[in-house]
């Protein structure tokens, strides 16, 4: 199946310190039967964990499998291998009723504020839906919907309005309210602020930070923008072609990246200070990372080898395992 091995110590943990979420050797292939077996895995042996109250950022290029991992955790995508454990319970292939039994503990905020709320239902009815599914009576659900809207900075009366009557940023707040109304302990945010303008993005990021501090929430924060991730996350996992390249404390990964891909990713993110940006650009160009356009490596070996300036024969023949290097875990033979 997968050759990935997590080298992190795996001593059994006492229940109190056990991670909120644990993803182990996750493999996801799209398609069915023979087509799936032939296709490269969209997620290929990914392992990470999230402690209670912790925010983990998941970054990578488009198509690297970020959303797929989020969907697998949320039960929206069938898993081909590995396991997902939530609060000690195996939810790798949990169905609708088991998910209901989680009691709204695991929730999601999606990217597109336009399609994440049903345009035909009022805001109140969308917010009440998860509560009603858990047997809360209509009057109380409605009450809590109003409370939650106030908490995310919208007027109570918004319960009677339709999503189309709100701006993108306001709709995204409603999505946040919907995710948090069941008092979850973990929220998967898939590009939750990517579609928003700078100032609106800052408002929603602050709101997420406020709610985290207030309620001890954990987030799996999926984004392609490493600066946005860095604002919210304590730890960052970097993906490339469905595999973890580097994972570690946010400051170490973003300030002192060890993996050649992470280095390229960080260097490419432009800063709004012209002189510093000019220096960064030079640094990026001197890295010598090749363009990703034509690079589809065959199976086995390091997935980044066709773009990597340091690649050798070893990189072609052997997939590098995650090993600890300077505070982070890095999957590179030469890091």
């Amino acid at each position, binding site marked *: 199946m997968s050759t990935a091995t997590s080298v992190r110590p795996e001593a059994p943990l006492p229940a109190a310190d056990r991670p909120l979420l644990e993803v182990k050797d996750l493999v996801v292939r799209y398609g*069915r039967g023979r087509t799936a077996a032939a296709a490269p895995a969209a997620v290929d042996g990914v392992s990470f964990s999230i402690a209670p109250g912790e925010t983990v950022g998941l970054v990578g*290029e*488009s198509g690297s499998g970020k959303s797929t991992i989020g969907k697998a955790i949320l039960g*929206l995508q069938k898993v081909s291998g590995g396991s997902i454990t939530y609060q000690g319970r195996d939810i790798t292939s949990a169905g*609708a*009723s*088991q*998910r209901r*039994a*989680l009691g*709204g503990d695991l*929730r999601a905020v999606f990217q597109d504020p336009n399609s*994440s709320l049903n345009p*035909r*239902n009022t805001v109140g*009815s969308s917010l*009440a*839906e998860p509560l*009603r*599914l858990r047997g809360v009576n*209509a009057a109380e*659900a409605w009450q809590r919907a109003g409370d939650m809207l*106030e908490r995310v900075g*919208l*007027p109570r*009366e*918004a319960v009677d309005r339709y999503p189309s*009557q*709100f*701006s993108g*940023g306001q709709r995204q707040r409603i999505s946040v309210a*919907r995710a948090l109304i069941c008092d979850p302990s973990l929220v998967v945010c898939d590009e939750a602020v990517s579609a928003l*303008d*700078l*100032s*609106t993005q*800052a408002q929603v990021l*602050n709101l997420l930070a406020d709610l985290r501090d207030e309620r001890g929430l954990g987030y799996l924060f999926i984004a392609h*923008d490493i600066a946005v991730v*860095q*604002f919210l996350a304590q730890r960052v996992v970097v993906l490339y072609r469905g595999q973890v390249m580097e994972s570690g404390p946010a*400051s170490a990964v*973003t300030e002192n990246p060890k993996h050649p891909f992470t280095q*390229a*990713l960080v260097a*490419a*993110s*432009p*800063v*709004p*200070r*012209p002189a510093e*940006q000019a220096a960064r*650009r030079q640094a*990026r*160009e001197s890295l010598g990372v090749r*363009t*990703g*356009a*034509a690079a589809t490596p065959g199976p086995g070996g390091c997935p980044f080898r066709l773009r990597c300036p340091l690649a050798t024969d070893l990189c072609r023949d052997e997939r590098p395992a995650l090993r600890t290097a300077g505070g982070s875990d890095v999957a590179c033979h030469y890091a």
Partner: protein
Amino acid sequence: MIPNTAPAPADETTTAAAVLPQTPGQSAAKKFAGSKLFGSPASIAGVIWLAALVAASLTAPLWLPFKTEDQDFTAVLSGPTAAHWLGTDELGRDLLSRIFASAAGTLGTSMITVIVAVGLGTLLAMLAAAAGDRAENVISRVTEIMMSLPGTVIILAVIGAVGTNIPLIMGILGVLISAGIYRVMLGQAKSLQSQLYVDAAKVDGMGMAGISLRHVLPGLTNTIVVQAALIFAVGMLIQAGLAFIGFGPPIPEPSWGGMIQGASQHVYDAPWLMVPTGAVLALTVLAANAIGNALGKAPNATASHLPSAAARRQRAKSVAAIAAAAPAPKDSAKDTLSVRNLSVGVDNGVRLVTDVSFDVEPGTVLGLVGESGCGKTMTALSLLGLLPSGVSVAEGQILWNGTNLAAATEKAMEGIRGREVALISQEPMRALDPMFTVGYQLTAAIRRLRGTGRADAKAEALGLLEKVGIVDAARILKTYPHQISGGMAQRVAIALALSGRPRLLVADEPTTALDVTVQAEILSLLRSLVKDTGMSVVMVTHDLGVVADLCDQVAVMYAGQVVENGRTDSILDNPRHPYTLALLAADPHANHAADMPERLATITGQVPQPKDWPSTCRFASRCQFAGSACTVPVPLLPSGAGDGVVRCVKADELAVVGLDWVATDIPARHVLSLSETRTVEKDHA
């Protein structure tokens, strides 16, 4: 048997409503349908006719002049008379009474077809959409078989076996038609299933049935109603047709089919007999069709997307007015763009861009930044004469090499577009035609814009692709747009834009849809193109990092105005306008991980709608430094840094005091909710 096979959609809605509190949401689709229903005279007449028919039929015993079985042997097969307004049949029974008394029954049997066909078809479609590929394949195969069955033969066979049991026949007809309905509904059900709110409901643990009833079915109601009206008409016709060839309902009970069957036996000796029933039947079918057509009409089907003749006249007029107002100076430097007091407006008078001025020197890059809704794209499109229909330049000049593009005719613009001024857009795929190879599109553009021959154009195309950094250019020439990645497609789109050797490139968010790694490559490419060819670029972006990387000058736009303009380094390192200050403070890229603040600065509220732009400082409602001095129109004044300008009465004061746009803490939420309550209400009103 039939009621079991066809759970009526109405029942399903009630079940859905039982799961959750009934809210106004459920009626949204119906309201929509209602407004369309009464939108055309034909459908209004149709609704009135059907309603009158049903009402008349149900109240028949109260007002009809005769009982349906009363026989008047003095008037057999008579035409209309004072006693029998619509005549009588072969037993002397009053046709008027019989037609109206039996209307409800006849309409009812057609409804069986409607309920079975639409109910079953919709159910299958929702099932196929919810249960995954395998189930969909099975259901689709089954419906294909159903559609290939010879319907007439089956119905005649059933009649042969069990006699003319009309409800049963209409039910079977419904089953046969349901395959077609399934076809119509499947695509729509699948797209509803793939919405993110369905994912959200799945995360809640909502089951397949719940999702189908609550999130898919309501989205299908419009189609359901349309199809029902059309099938209703089909049912009526088939019933009549069967009756005409002798398979009408059993005799004693009056029914339209029976009456047509009776009349068909007297076509020669009493042709009138067919007329009243036939006419009522025809009217009913027409009514159902009119209703179906009205409901099925796309909203705004009448509003064309092409510029109307009136809009074109309008543009010609405004162009002429602008040309008359300001004769263009002819002595401008080569390859210089100079936008002077540009205003862009909707034809109804609302301005989207007001009084924008900037210059772009040859070989330099100007960034246009600001939030969405600030008029960046409108400004950019006006440079190419590509404003959407209904929007035009209202005032000002766009001077390119001394020619005022704002006053240029469409014909003149065609000569300039692509050759002198070219566009690259956010969505590279929009510039590329999926039907043709990259090579075909590139060579066609080169031949059109440069007038080169076929062979030369091919070589040029190869060279262009290499110029935009594509390594295996020869292979890419042979591929179709969907076979290449987004970053590659944007390179090809840039190559396409370069094919006419433009001197000015207008780039509207060219890297927003790309990965940062690819963005960095595209920015480097643009930089080297500027350096090598000396062309200039107007770059629309919301990313201040992109501005820092590429732009020499930057114009910050807010609510249709330039609020600050000048050299990139002086503006980004030393912002003078509070809006620029706020954008930088809100940008997480502006901070290193080490000094990342606990909270980012935000700007309360949002950009106001163009119709609500005040005559005072437009940023005042959101500005942390707003004061009484800000309640007047604010002009652009020199900022003191080079030839920079800034539109803020307090710019000097702020520069001296060195104020920061602060990250507002929790109490700001109240401000936020207040200001947003206002905008929400405005939207609502």
